[in-house]
């Protein structure tokens, strides 16, 4: 299985450019799609899920262009949108049965699968309660279950852990890891730790542009030797921020411990740190900001 995103652009009415010539090639594994709010992640997800038409460019699923024949992909697609609703008078079991029928899953297979999925998302006990009474997290879990209904070859999940408690979040991450072996999973989020836990590849999107698409190891290597811990008095923190990219701070008795991204040690007391994915992500965004500013000036 192979998903190719070829020079994909999307312009909304009012000349809002959501995606600019995005190129990706994906095979089995988990792609973590990172980006700040408004980066174009959800637009990309919706195009890949055949909901939205691109302005230009193509998406190929196993060599078939999905804009021409979307049902080829839809038959093997599992999709969890960022925002979705449910029918409040149906219970979880009935809702999943309905969607299974819509997706053409045979009755016996659907019944078995739904039982397993409800167990998987920890909703067996609440399966016969009307969805109208579900909390946000429970509704999200129903969304996760419906995305897995048809045993999808391409699973697209947009901000899947929104509304989940830490326990359910971890459970979902494990689930994604287990599922990724034989399918393409695209996980879109702005929570770096979610991606860190499961992604085999990472793509960073900002202002509609693909800034990076690489393995986590390569991304980490790109900031290796550029992450420092500096201890400064609270009063000097502002000046440090002006000079360097500060990814996090922690107040201690000896001052503020700042995690700094810089090509060279910010001062003689600076201590080199092991880079994290969050550092790589912030560095990529920072590079884009600088190049944009450079172009502007």
């Amino acid at each position: 299985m192979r998903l190719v995103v070829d020079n994909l652009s999307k312009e909304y009415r009012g000349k809002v450019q959501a995606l600019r010539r995005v190129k990706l090639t994906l095979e089995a594994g988990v792609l973590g799609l990172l980006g700040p709010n408004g980066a174009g992640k959800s637009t990309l997800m919706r195009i890949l899920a055949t909901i939205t038409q691109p302005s230009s460019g193509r998406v190929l699923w196993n060599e078939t262009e999905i804009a021409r024949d979307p049902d080829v992909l839809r038959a093997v697609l599992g999709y969890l949108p960022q925002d979705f609703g449910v029918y409040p008078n149906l219970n979880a079991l009935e809702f999943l049965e309905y969607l299974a029928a819509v997706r053409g899953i045979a009755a016996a297979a659907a019944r078995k699968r739904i039982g397993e999925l409800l167990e998987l998302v920890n909703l067996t006990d609440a399966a016969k309660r009307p969805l109208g009474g579900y909390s946000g997290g429970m509704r999200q879990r129903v969304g996760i279950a419906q995305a897995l209904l048809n045993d999808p070859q391409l699973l697209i999940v947009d901000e899947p852990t929104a509304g989940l408690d830490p326990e359910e979040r971890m459970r979902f991450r494990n689930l994604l890891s287990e599922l990724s072996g034989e399918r393409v999973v695209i996980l879109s989020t702005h929570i770096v730790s979610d991606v860190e836990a499961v992604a085999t590849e990472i793509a960073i999107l900002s202002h509609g542009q693909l800034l990076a698409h690489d393995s986590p190891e390569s991304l980490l290597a790109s900031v290796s030797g550029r992450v420092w811990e500096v201890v400064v008095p609270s009063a000097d923190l502002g000046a440090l921020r002006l000079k360097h990219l500060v990814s996090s701070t922690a107040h201690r008795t000896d001052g503020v411990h700042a995690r700094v991204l810089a090509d060279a040690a910010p001062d003689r007391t600076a201590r080199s740190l092991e880079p994290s994915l969050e550092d790589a992500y912030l560095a990529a965004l920072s590079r884009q900001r600088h190049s944009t500013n450079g172009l502007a000036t």
Partner: protein
Amino acid sequence: MRQLRVIFAIARADFLERARRYSFFLTLLFAVILGYSAATGKITIRLGDYRGVYTSAWIGIMVAMVTTCFVSLVGFYVVKNAVDCDRQTGVGQILATTPLSKSSYLVGKFFSNFAVLASMVFILALSAIVMWFFAAEDPRFDLWALVSPFLLVALPAIALTASLALLFESLPVLRGGVGNVIWVFAWSLGIGLPELTGLPWLDASGLMTVSEQMMAAARTTIPGYTHGFSLGINLEPVTVAQTLRYQGIQWSKEEVFVRLIWFCVAFVLALLAALFFDRFDPACSLVPLLRRRKPQDQSPEAGDVLTLAASVTTARPPAAVHLTLLAGAAHTGAFGRLFAAELRLAVKGLRWWWYVVAAGLVAAQFFAPLELSRGPLLGVAWIWPILIWSAMGARESRFGTNELLFSSAWILRRQLPACWFAGVAVALLTGIGAAIRLFLAGQNASLMAWLAGALFLPSFALALGIWSGSSKPYEGLLTALWYIGPMNRTPGLDFTGAANGPITLRYSVIYLALSAALLTLAFFGRARQLRSD
């Protein structure tokens, strides 16, 4: 002063939000079409077989009465979402946490509703002025005579509509489709009540005041005229009474006072709505308290499985869950199962008494005299499921399940037809008593009309639901059509076919063709939704 500022802010924000929607421009376009229909004589006031010379006053009154009747009826559906919009967007939750009082909120919404409807009235008033330039048969231009009916007849009436829409939204029972259906009857009652009771102070629409004054003028100027006043679509030729050069309503102080009182009534109704308004508290909704059930024991079966071991500790540690891999053959779900799922979705939430009434109507069709069975009884049986049909096509937008559904395969080939068949099944089942009677009586043409009606109702619903994304247009239009057609036995508009007499078969073919056209429209509408830009 602070309260006034709050009310103004709410009214302004709500009006701007609605005025910037595409549907608002469609509403104004509808107003322009109405104005054009009046200007070209398609809609007119008749006094028996006559109409007066097109003076400023005649044109003003004619367009103002068209405005009053149509905007007060249709406008209700346009504005009956002021509170619901805040409920759906979640803005209501934010407002509920502020010191804003329920009455200030609803008064603000009332002014916004009024402003939306008043903008329609304004467009129609402009069209009356334009009409005077093109169609006037009397050269004297009298601005007050032209405009005063809009100010003193139309505006008070639409103020009442604006506040009643809020009251309906505040009452849980009337908030949904039931309220949309009831409105048509309430409006009809409001129009007819002053005439029936002879009480002019009940004349919110101003129709009685206007008709009595115009009829009085006609009696003195048209020889032989005694009575008769109608406002509507002009199907038959009308004689222009050259002697009737109507110069306008002579507004007495009392009459002006009574018209202005309706503004106060509307304001009081908006305040009354505050008594029932739940202030966005979901606990006050009509959704029955949810029952907790005992956990069910669902142990996974052995087979070709993928084992997923949850590695975290939970209050009730999750067991290892097995997800059965679906083979290719598992993706061959029969269409019948999807049809059953759509039918179940359509009727889900109906109470037992709904079925009792529907069954009672079927039994009545079966045992009542044939004319009664295929006429009024079938008519009632086919308005009873209106809320089932009105959800067709609009359900996905209403509940936000579009993306879940539209990312599935074969929506056009499977889900859309299944949804339509479910609607047809409801029509067939609720009207089955009359069909059996017609079959036994050998009335094949009438049976054909019955079938055409059964296909038309869900087709109309599906097309309107898909294109409007709301169930309101169908609820309003079908109720109006039902009232004019089956209930008033208007040939051609009676979708049960009972009023069509000897040309039943011809009308059946028309309804079948209309159903096919509506289905095609629904198909293209859904295809457009599936490939959104």
